[in-house]
């Protein structure tokens, strides 16, 4: 679709400049899109393996915890787990992947998990808590990766929309308008030339 502009030399220059910028932007955005895709592919591989591992460990730990509750008095297990001596804190920050801010988490575990008496609790509880403790770091890492994937996916969607807008709307419309103005200007020039020739003829005649 042609842009609604006056067919003047000034507009032609302006549009040519705009077209050059749009083409440069298009190339840059296309490169960005490819790089984002590459990042997503590598994240997908990491997330796939990590999630499988985390889910398997969590299922095992849950089953062990259920068994621990079933083997002994559930209330005793509740009491044993109600006052943890372990403290989990995370150092949260951000980093940038192609100007997309993604989170970084560094977990810090302090204290002991076994802070209860062994008499009234089952051995399965120790194992359940141990396996949960072991998987915590991976869970935090998984959270970091999945959030990064989510943010990158949104950025890819946005960038793709921009690339498409440039490729299918801005660049063709500007190019079409430029060629229209060129035709119009050359037509005006031809008209002027013909008029001058005609006037010359009249003056001579």
């Amino acid at each position, binding site marked *: 679709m042609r842009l609604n502009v006056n067919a003047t030399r000034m507009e032609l220059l302006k549009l040519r400049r705009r077209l050059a910028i749009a083409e440069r932007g298009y190339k840059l955005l296309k490169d960005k899109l490819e790089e984002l895709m590459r990042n997503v592919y590598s994240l*997908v591989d990491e997330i*796939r393996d990590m999630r499988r591992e985390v889910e398997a460990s969590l*299922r095992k730990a*849950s089953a062990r915890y259920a068994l621990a509750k079933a083997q002994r008095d559930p209330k005793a297990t509740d009491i044993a787990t109600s006052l943890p001596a372990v*403290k989990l804190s995370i150092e949260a920050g951000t980093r940038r992947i192609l100007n997309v801010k993604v*989170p970084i988490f560094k977990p810090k*575990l302090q204290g002991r998990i076994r802070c209860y008496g062994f008499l009234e609790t089952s051995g399965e509880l120790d194992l359940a808590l141990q396996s949960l403790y072991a998987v915590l770091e991976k869970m935090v890492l998984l959270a970091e990766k*999945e959030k990064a*994937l989510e943010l990158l996916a949104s950025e890819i969607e946005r960038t793709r929309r921009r690339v498409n807008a440039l490729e299918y709307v801005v660049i063709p419309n500007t190019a079409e308008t430029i060629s229209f103005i060129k035709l119009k200007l050359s037509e005006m020039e031809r008209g002027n030339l013909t008029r001058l020739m005609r006037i010359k003829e009249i003056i001579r005649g």
Partner: protein
Amino acid sequence: MPGLTEICILGPRELTEPFRAVGLGEARADESSVLEKARELALSNYKIVFYAEGFYPLLRDFLLKRKGRMFPTFVPIPSVGEEERYAMQRVRELIKKAIGVDVYLEVK
């Protein structure tokens, strides 16, 4: 308890209990109260909220609305005794949105 730790677990009692023992914050919720709890947690100081993946259909719209926000990061984990695979489904949706095709199950 918000503030004591920076990671919280949102879900039914049987899921949150063992995590409490390893130092995570606990937010117990059932299907009727999960959305309200999630909203509360979104305003808290938690950096990561792990939630039972069984709640994913209930939290989907809420999570979509806050997808650009960094903290707290909501991450699904498997619920006890169920295998809904919502967490995987969520990841696959994200990949499909980003790449256009589902490459999650492709063999390396």
